[in-house]
């Protein structure tokens, strides 16, 4: 749960409550972008990379940082795979 996982925003589902779909290492799941919105409808857009903690995007990052983070997470091994499994089981609305 302490692992921040990079995701690429692929769809904005509900701009008012800040619900988006992110692609996280090939897994697509809904995440909240509301904590990156200074006003409703603001925040990251399609193709932006974000760092996701427990279903919430907390920081916008660039593609290079996302690639480095993926590489580091893969090196961590089991805890990362567990985090991805938990993310895959997530179905927020």
């Amino acid at each position, binding site marked *: *749960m*302490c*692992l*921040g996982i990079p995701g690429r925003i692929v769809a904005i589902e509900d701009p008012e*409550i800040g619900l988006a779909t992110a692609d996280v290492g090939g897994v697509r799941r809904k995440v*909240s972008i*509301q*904590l*990156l*919105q*200074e006003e409703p409808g603001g925040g990251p857009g399609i193709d932006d990379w974000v*760092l996701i*903690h*427990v*279903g*919430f995007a*907390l*920081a916008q*990052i*660039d593609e*290079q*940082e996302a*690639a*480095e*983070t993926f*590489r*580091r997470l893969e*090196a*961590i*091994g*089991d*805890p990362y795979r*567990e985090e991805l499994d*938990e*993310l895959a*089981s*997530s*179905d*927020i*609305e």
Partner: protein
Amino acid sequence: MRFVDEYRSPDIARGLAAEIAELAGDGHHKIMEICGGHTHAIYRHGIPDYLPDNVELVHGPGCPVCVVPAGRIDDAIAIAFEPGVILTTFGDLMRVPGGQGSFLDANSRGADIRMVYSPLDALKVARRNPDRRVVFAAIGFETTAPATAATVLRAAAEGIDNFSVLSNHVLVGPAIQAILDAPGQDLDGFLGPGHVSTVIGASAYEFVARDHGKPLVVSGFEPLDVLQAIAWLLRQRQEGRAEVTNQYTRVVPWEGNRAALRAIDATMEPRATFEWRGLGEIPWSALALREEYAAFDAERHFTLPGRRVADHRACQCAEVLTGRLKPWQCAVFGTVCTPENPIGTCMVSSEGACAAYYHYGRLQLGRDAHAAPVPSP
């Protein structure tokens, strides 16, 4: 991906190592890191092998699962056995031993404790089970507190009346303060945490330099990030400065994430005191729900046993969490206490110093090797 390799170049690492050795001079430098991610990076990449003998890295209480006292686990389990309750929590907490076993043990005795990825998943469990009382056992530093806060705001907006939070959220600043205030403290500087700082900002640590005269450098997680942050700390020491600087500007803003801080502030307030495993009671070090959100506060819905539970007699997590012992110096490390059968929280969580050392210790066969018998996992 050439740019990725630049963060791991052995040539640059050796250059930084030489710079660190020069900056370190003849003095001794004891640097504490307070982030489970850094603990991992340090062991995984054998960072101590790049450092001269007079630059010592020690681990602080950077793992929120590790500092949760056993009594709070028992409190959550007591709630889980109340009629109609579904307790939800992050996977990391499922195996943490309380005074009477873990959440997994409670499930084998008939409790309904479910693992969720996000507090928003816990809220969904509440929506889908209107006849049950759904409690989210929340844990984490300011990295996860905004998620809990935003979920409470969402529950309030939707008028969901069968959802509540048992908050075990802790604050990183007061933990650093407690370490700095501890008698005999002899630290020379800090590697500032990475992801928690995206929320609170590098500016949140200014008291470390201002009030305690210690430098702090917020660091990224790549091996070169950590080495560069150490070099920055030593340069400050050499020049007689103590400042807070941010090596991890590509992710951490100076002022933090304002929307996340607003969500926390709207729903939660600091508790007068909270018990930390290994550190004892620390004033203003944890978050409880505000009165305005009492309807979502499990502590107001349920009577908690609230008992203090002593740690296992042989467990030395307290010493490990405060940097007084290295993981392998604990009497039960790797023998009685392993990731498969953990006695202490430092071995339970993959972010704990003992678990990280257990997994990666063999990669670090440097100067500590003679003092560090590493078992086969």
